[in-house]
């Protein structure tokens, strides 16, 4: 009988993920044993502690370049950088999720099983403490995202995709108010998400048939010297790409984004907009750069067309929106298009500028959703555009902060939006994709219009009867706002330290 050889496991390199999954499991147990009154503080503390510990583990391992557990996980520059970004952005979103003072009891339903519209539902909406399951769920999602960007074979990638998606489906359904919208968002996200992952899996099957293995380096070798029919390669790659493009919200796989962003509780929307984007693009980068680099001439025009389509869909539909959450959702779709421009440069510069963009965009979008959670009336958040008329007169500080974030989205110099767009467009020109940059600049100008419309509405309109009051942000939301705005400004004024860091990290191991 053949001797079975166990693969070696580099526990130190896996430590960030192990910490998060461990903390999530502990969090589930705490749900059972800790009394309801003190649960929130303990759970928030535990999940923040886990995120910080995992971040420390990532920083300690910063020099590691290795492939471990039998080729399933690659810990290299991009992995460590993206894991670090996901952890920082995830930690900041946890502060937003943990906010319990802006709305009495927090943004989450006290018990998800309560039927909508029943007497119990009225009671819970009036201020019972929100559910604390959100912390373990967020921690599980974060762990899955860390694994997703590190996955070096397609099975690990599929499992990680599900590990971070499933908690997100549930988190979407947990809003305290407008629960029907929230549940509907969860249903749509779940059905379309699992539809996309079924495509991803069928693609994995084809690639396995083509390459005889699922490790990305094996796929790379098979692409260079094919032994099987090319049909399997192209069919497999196409199906695989559908799954990844869905998570990254690129047109035509973006239709879920506005509905889910609008229906989900705002802290969860912020978490998805910042962290899921990093994870999805991290995996997309790895698949394109490591496994399918050999067929770049075949996929570049197709994915380029998708990028252009995404930028146009995002920019044009953002103009027509009347709800701020949907507007930001379409803006995030357009931003996915810009990120794709960086990805398609297919050189080191493209890799580093995409990673820079992900971090810069993540912080701005967290600040934007933090602001949205503050403007509210008796029914919860007032996200309709007309309600924001003249809010600059009533609360200039909030309006000024929001104006700054919107200008950053529009790509005004001295904000991170400008430097990051400049970086991805520069990389694309260097990679010979000038046509993408031309469409990118055109859509950026289009996209500036909806942002400026909101700015004009806030400052130049008279406040009406229905202009809602602005809540005083609690400590946690203030922290999120402060961090988001400072990073947006900092990366606009002095981007070079982070750019240097991304350049050092921009090297995949194979």
């Amino acid at each position, binding site marked *: 009988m053949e001797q079975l050889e166990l693969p070696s496991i580099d526990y130190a390199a896996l430590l960030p993920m192990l910490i998060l999954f461990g903390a999530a499991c502990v969090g589930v147990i705490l749900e059972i044993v800790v009394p309801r009154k003190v649960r929130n503080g303990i759970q928030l503390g535990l999940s923040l502690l886990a995120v910080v510990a995992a971040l420390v583990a990532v920083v300690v391992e910063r020099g590691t370049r290795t492939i471990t557990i039998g080729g399933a996980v690659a810990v290299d520059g991009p992995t460590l950088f993206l894991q670090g970004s996901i952890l920082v952005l995830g930690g900041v979103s946890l502060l937003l999720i943990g906010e319990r003072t802006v709305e009495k009891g927090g943004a989450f339903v006290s018990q998800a099983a309560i039927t*909508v519209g029943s007497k119990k539902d009225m009671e819970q909406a009036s201020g019972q403490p929100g559910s604390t399951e959100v912390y373990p769920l967020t921690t599980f999602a974060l762990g899955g995202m860390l694994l997703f960007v590190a996955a070096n074979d397609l*099975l690990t990638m599929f499992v990680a995709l599900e590990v971070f998606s499933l908690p997100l489906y*549930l988190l979407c359904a947990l809003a305290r108010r407008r629960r029907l919208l929230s549940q509907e968002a969860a249903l749509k996200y779940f059905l379309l998400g699992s*539809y996309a992952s079924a495509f991803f899996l069928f693609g994995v099957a084809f690639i396995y048939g083509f390459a005889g293995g699922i490790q990305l380096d094996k796929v790379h070798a098979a692409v260079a010297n094919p032994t099987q029919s090319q049909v399997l390669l192209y069919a497999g790659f196409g199906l695989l790409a559908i799954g990844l493009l869905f998570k990254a919200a690129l047109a035509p796989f973006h239709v879920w984004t506005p509905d889910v962003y609008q229906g989900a509780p705002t802290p969860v929307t912020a978490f998805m907009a910042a962290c899921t984007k990093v994870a999805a693009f991290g995996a997309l980068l790895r698949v394109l750069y490591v496994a399918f680099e050999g067929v770049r001439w075949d996929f570049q025009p197709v994915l380029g067309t998708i990028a252009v389509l995404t930028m146009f869909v995002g920019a044009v539909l953002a103009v027509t929106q009347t709800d701020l959450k949907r507007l930001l959702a379409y803006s995030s779709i357009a931003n996915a298009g810009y990120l794709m421009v960086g990805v398609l440069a297919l050189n080191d510069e493209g890799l580093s500028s995409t990673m820079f963009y992900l971090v810069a965009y993540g912080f701005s979008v967290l600040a934007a959703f933090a602001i949205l959670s503050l403007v509210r009336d008796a029914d919860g958040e007032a996200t309709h555009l007309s309600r924001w008329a003249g809010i600059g007169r009533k609360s200039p500080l909030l309006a000024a902060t929001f104006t700054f974030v919107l200008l950053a989205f529009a790509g005004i110099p001295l904000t991170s939006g400008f430097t990051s767009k400049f970086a991805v467009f520069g990389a694309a020109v260097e990679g010979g994709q000038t046509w993408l940059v031309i469409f990118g600049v055109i859509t950026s100008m289009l996209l500036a219009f909806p942002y400026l419309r909101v700015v004009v509405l806030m400052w130049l309109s008279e406040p009406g009867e229905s202009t809602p009051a602005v809540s005083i942000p609690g400590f946690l939301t203030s922290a999120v706002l402060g961090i988001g705005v400072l990073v947006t400004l900092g990366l606009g004024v002095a981007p070079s330290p982070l750019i240097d860091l991304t350049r050092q990290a921009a090297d995949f191991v194979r």
Partner: protein
Amino acid sequence: MTPDYYLVLATILFTIGATGVLIRRNAIVLFMCIELMLNAANLALVTFSRINGSLDGQIISFFVMVVAAAEVVIGLAIIMSIFRTRRSASVDDANLLKY
């Protein structure tokens, strides 16, 4: 006997599932169609495992079954909570979010 027929069968099953998701209206049926797609992928994996002469494909299909089971738990929970309010599992009734 050539294993290619199983690939054809897997593709047909996958297509039935994918079409079903697009044309059916009941959330539970949609969900069953997605499961059908996952199982079609399993069949393809096992067939390729036979063609390639490696065990990887069979091992992957076990992982897929576990993931599919986890998905069922989440999916039914979401569909249940909606059904309790609306008394309907039709995806056409879930139409509050648009434009």
